[in-house]
């Protein structure tokens, strides 16, 4: 390397990567091939996603209504949701009855204080529902919860109770998680 060569020239030469791998020039053809492959991957992914979404049980509508701050169940099932703050107020003033739509085992390992368990997916649900409808007035305000934002147990239970003639049925979305996070009272293993 001669002293006549300027520093600028040498630096510039270094950043031309070609001399590092002289045998592997990046072909223009390769670039267009990559873009073609990108389009193939994108199309394949979107097609797979749309197909599985159409087939799966917990599918989403392609365009959802997020104006309520969460994806509204109301849009699909016409069942109102109750914000956590309102649910807390109703709990403290004892205005509403809380219903736990989760399984018996989940209920026993912890539930909102005073909540009744109506496990929609379990075998004895019919009998429990009958007892419940004899015991609880149809004008009573009911707040149904399960766990998880995408939990479908509460809407299921809500539509069943509506069918039985309960007028004031609401859903507390992601109820159990939200409830425990606020530090509101809960019970472990109670009698229903």
């Amino acid at each position, binding site marked *: 390397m001669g002293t006549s060569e300027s520093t600028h020239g040498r630096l510039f030469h*270094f950043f031309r*990567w070609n001399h*590092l*791998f002289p*045998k*592997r020039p990046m*072909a223009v053809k*390769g670039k267009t091939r*990559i*873009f*073609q*492959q*990108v389009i*193939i*991957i*994108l199309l*394949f*992914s*979107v097609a*797979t*996603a*749309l197909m*599985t*979404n159409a087939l799966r049980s*917990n*599918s*989403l*509508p*392609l*365009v*959802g*209504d*997020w*104006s309520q701050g*969460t*994806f509204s169940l109301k849009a699909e099932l016409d069942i109102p949701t109750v914000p956590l703050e309102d649910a807390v107020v109703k709990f403290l003033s004892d205005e509403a009855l809380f219903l736990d739509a989760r399984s018996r085992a989940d209920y026993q390992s912890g539930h909102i204080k005073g909540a009744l368990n109506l496990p929609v997916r379990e075998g004895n649900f019919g009998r429990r529902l009958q007892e419940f409808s004899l015991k609880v007035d149809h004008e009573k305000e009911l707040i149904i919860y399960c766990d*998880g*934002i*995408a939990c479908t147990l509460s809407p299921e239970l809500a539509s069943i109770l509506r069918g039985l003639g309960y007028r004031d049925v609401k859903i507390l979305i*992601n109820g159990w*998680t939200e409830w425990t*996070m606020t530090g509101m009272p809960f019970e472990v293993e109670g009698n229903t």
Partner: protein
Amino acid sequence: MKEFMRSIFSLYANPYVSVIFRWAVGLIFIYASVDKLLNPLAFGVAVYNYKILPGGFINLVAITLPWLELICGILLIAGLFPRAAALIVSVLLLIFFSALSTSLYRGIDISCGCFSVNTTADTIGISSMIRDLLILPMSIQILLFDEGLIGIGRGQDGRRFKPHNLA
């Protein structure tokens, strides 16, 4: 110094290093996609919380993005279209990074939705941005230097084994 830089750079440019990176990035993306695939609605909530996308697009992203991540991950590991997959992954990482940084700048305290859709776990922070920036050089390395070694696809110039790489 110049020799040192050159050796570091040729290590970075080594096509066998990109095989390792392909597996690393591929496994990360497959792992990241699983929870979102299983709970699209919960992932939609995570996307909504960033408050970047208009409401009409949230479900589309919640439906397609996990599949794109999964498929890119599988392609990277399989070595099929690895550079195209790496290009998509790099763009995704840049999008994630800008979403994270704008949310942090605006001071929104939300969950990342990166690996788990659980809203209580994995709050966004500097660590999630650093994690993002650690994956990016790997995917860029794959994009620039991968030759499809140890994979089912055909390499850059259509040949599976290239003698000059073995020298």
